[in-house]
Structure formats: structure tokens, C-alpha cells
């Protein structure tokens, strides 16, 4: 009868009970991660995210279990679990795949994904459903990834030759369809040209190449959809900038174990997110 009692009590105080349940979920998650650390966990990322009227700690961790890697991400009142694996084919390619489930006070979400390359073909596919805006379950889901409902995305690439690649994106993010076709040609630098449709037609031009000691990747989409993305990477520092119209912008800087993101969006307003990653086990050897 304890369950019946709890249900009766909960009926009068659903928010309190749900909040308590979520606290419990977070406690269990933290407990699991602490148990797994440092013997097994690969990495543990601790963060603090804030936007107007909302402040939450964030936590991300990965744990290899056999051929799978289990992932956990948590924020206030929401928890996401991922199981992923991959078929490794050496220099021929690989196919990674996984499943993520998220649960929290605001709702739930599930998502399946596959990403990989096999010889001349590359594929990045996602299929998911969320009962609420995804940012309520994970603050890192910006933009169209933030929409609730069905979300389908298929990004395929095909190498015409060693230097030329075709790309095709098709997607549905409730409630709109979108698509994009592109052609990339690579010499010392890579140029990408394309056309897309997202509420209306737009054009795409991209450039990727060495810039001093760094590598710059620039993509501009303009027309009915307007967005500039720039990523400048060096061995020590990675900087990401996005600028969109209707107005939204974000800037991210990653150096060593630290990562800082800040920006402005129509839904989130001004936000900031600071993260610190603890590399555990053999991970430290990766960058020798």
C-alpha cells in the first residue's frame, strides 16, 4: 500500500513530488558517476548554465562498457542517457550508432542516431521525438534541435573523386520541412556551393582552409534563411561563432579543459555556459 499512499499524496502535490523525483534522479546519476570515477569513466564534464530566470548546473559523463559507450547528461530536473557503439572498419570507414533517452520534469524525448563513412559514402542520420522543447531537457540543444515533436534529419555525402564531394540534407523539424544540396571542391582550400530550402530558397557558400597557424571553416547561408557560421581551430584553441537573422548569435571558446559559450536567441534571451572537463583514465594519453 505504500505506493497507493504516495499516489494519493502526489495527486495533491504533483509539482513537489515530480521535483523530488527529479532530485532523486539527479542524485542517482551523480552517485553512478562518482562510483564509476575514476576507474572506468573516460571523461566527466561539469558546468554551469544560466539565462534569464534560469540557472542550472550541468553534468556530462561517458563510461565504456564492452563495445558500447554509455553517456549521461544531466541538468536541473532533467536527465539524458545514451548508449552508443560503432562498427570499426579501419581506414575503409566506420559506422557509429546509438540511442538516447531523456526524462525530466517538463517531459521526455527519445532519439536514434547513426553516423559514419564507408569508402566514398558518408551518412549522418537522426530520428527523434520530444514531448517538450528539447532545451528543457538539455540546455545544449539550440535552434531547430530545440523544437518539440518529431525531428528527422538525413545528411548524406558522396565523393565524386578524391577532391569533389556532393552533399544532400533532408529533414523535418516540427512543423517544417527543409533540404539542402551542395558541391564541395578541395585543393589547398575547400570551397562549397549549394542551394537549400527552409521556409523559402537560400544560397550557400563555404570556405575551409589554413589561416596562419589555424584552420578556418566559414559557411554563409543567405536568402529566406540567413546564417553565418565560423569555426577557427588551432591546436590549443577552438572558437565558434554563429550569427543568424532573425537575430540570434553565439560565441564559443574552447581551450584545454575549459569551454565557454555565450549568446543571444529569441527564445532563450541572453545565455552563458561554462564547462570544465576532467579527462580520466587513458584519455590523457590521447593528445601526446
Amino acid at each position: 500500500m505504500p505506493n497507493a499512499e504516495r499516489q494519493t499524496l502526489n495527486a495533491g502535490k504533483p509539482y513537489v513530488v515530480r521535483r523530488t523525483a527529479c532530485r532523486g534522479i539527479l542524485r542517482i546519476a551523480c552517485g553512478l558517476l562518482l562510483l564509476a570515477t575514476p576507474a572506468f569513466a573516460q571523461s566527466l564534464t561539469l558546468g554551469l548554465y544560466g539565462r534569464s530566470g534560469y540557472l542550472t548546473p550541468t553534468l556530462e559523463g561517458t563510461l565504456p562498457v564492452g563495445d558500447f559507450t554509455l553517456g549521461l547528461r544531466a541538468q536541473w530536473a532533467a536527465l539524458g542517457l545514451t548508449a552508443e557503439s560503432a562498427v570499426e572498419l579501419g581506414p575503409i570507414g566506420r559506422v557509429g550508432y546509438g540511442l538516447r533517452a531523456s526524462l525530466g520534469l517538463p517531459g521526455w524525448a527519445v532519439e536514434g542516431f547513426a553516423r559514419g563513412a564507408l569508402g566514398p559514402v558518408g551518412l549522418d542520420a537522426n530520428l527523434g521525438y520530444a514531448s517538450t522543447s528539447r532545451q528543457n531537457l538539455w540546455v545544449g540543444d539550440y535552434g531547430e534541435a530545440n523544437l518539440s515533436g518529431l525531428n528527422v534529419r538525413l545528411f548524406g555525402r558522396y565523393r565524386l573523386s578524391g577532391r569533389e564531394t556532393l552533399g544532400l540534407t533532408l529533414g523535418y523539424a516540427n512543423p517544417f520541412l527543409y533540404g539542402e544540396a551542395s558541391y564541395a571542391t578541395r585543393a589547398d582550400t575547400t570551397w562549397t556551393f549549394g542551394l537549400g530550402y527552409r521556409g523559402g530558397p537560400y544560397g550557400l557558400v563555404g570556405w575551409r582552409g589554413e589561416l596562419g597557424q589555424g584552420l578556418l571553416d566559414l559557411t554563409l547561408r543567405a536568402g529566406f534563411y540567413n546564417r553565418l557560421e565560423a569555426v577557427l581551430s588551432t591546436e590549443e584553441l577552438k572558437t565558434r561563432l554563429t550569427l543568424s537573422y532573425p537575430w540570434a548569435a553565439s560565441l564559443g571558446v574552447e581551450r584545454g579543459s575549459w569551454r565557454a559559450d555565450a549568446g543571444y536567441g529569441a527564445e532563450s534571451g541572453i545565455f552563458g555556459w561554462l564547462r570544465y572537463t576532467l579527462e580520466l583514465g587513458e584519455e590523457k594519453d590521447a593528445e601526446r
Partner: protein
Amino acid sequence: MPNAKRQTLNPRRLLAVAAMICVLGLVFAQSATDIAKQVQANLEKSPWEATITGKVQTPDGSTQDAELRLQVVPGTNQTARVEFNKPASLEGNFVVIDDKEVWNYLFLTNQVIIQPRSKAKVEGLGVNLTSLGDFEELTNRLNLRPPLEVNSADGPAWRIVGTPKDNSLGFAQIELTVLKSDPRPVSIRILDSSNKVLAELNFRNFKRTNLTASALRKRPADAEVVRR
């Protein structure tokens, strides 16, 4: 004459001849091992690189032109890197292998997949090309036949034929041509159990370099690192 015939067929003499053949075989087998040791010593003198061209069989059974760049830094922190120029579908991909780890870079996904060496699959094209960077390890896993003297495009050479001691190498026979004047491989031919050629490769543009292990690990700065 009948006596002479009887002498020829004398079982003791036959045994003696057979024993001599065995001894000579052992001497030649030792020579093949010695050549392998000379090659290893020569390749361990300093960092080097070479272009490898030829044909390889892909997992689907078709044969493709291959052009690879092999770079090796010998020593305690031995590291080898294979960059793919051909086939076109793999251009831009590379593999880096050291004592502990294997790095696989995939151009299409811009990912570096890092795996422990014991777990990694590096053959991909039917043979583990990175093993060419560690000649002694490769020949230690082979039963070597007596070497033959041949003329290669680069000059007088030894031809060494070996069969794997176990199934882990993924082929049934390997034929190596080793230059006499500068002991290093100039060509390699790999066959499966039905004598089908899995790979036929020539070493070109061999040169000594001042490469370092960290230089061989160079990857695009924006590549995603995936540890498995």
C-alpha cells in the same frame, strides 16, 4: 655399372644427401633471417618515408590502384603513418600506429578514432600496411624460405618468400624484394591461400627525413576525436 647404380641408390648416401639439403636449407633460412635483421637495422637508423604504389584487393573482392605515403619514426617511441592518396574514395584518410594506439582519420566525417592497438582493425585493404614499418615484427611472424638473388629496377636484390606462422596476418604468402646495396624493401607481393594476389606494391621515393613522432600524429585542428 650395376655397382655404380647400387651406390647411387645406397640408402645411407640418400640419407646423407637429405641431411646435407636440410643443413643447407637451415643455412639459407638463417640467411633470410639475417637479411631481415639487416633490413630492420637499416630502417631503424633514422626516420624515413616512402611512396608505395601498386594494386590492392578491397574487401568486396575488386582490385584497386593504391598510392600510399608511409612515414616511419623508429626508436623507443616507434610510430608509423600511412596516408592514402589512392583509391580516390580514401584520399585524405590516414592511419597512425604506435606501440600502444592506432589512430584512424576519416576525411568524410572529419573524425580521428583512437583505439588500443590490441583492439584496432588496421588492415582495411586486405593487409595491415602499417606492419611494413616494423619489418622485424613482420618477419618474426613468418616462416622464411631460402632467399633468391634477383635483379630489381633499383639494382641487385634478394627475394624472400615467407608464409605466416598463424592466421593473424590475414594472408597466406608474402614475397619481399630487398635491395642489397641499401637493405630495404623495394617491392612486396601478398597472396591468399588460393594464390590470388591481395596486394602488389612497389616502394618509391625512399628517403631519410627528420620527422618526429608528434609530426606523424598531425591531424586537422578541427577534427573530432573519438576514443574507443
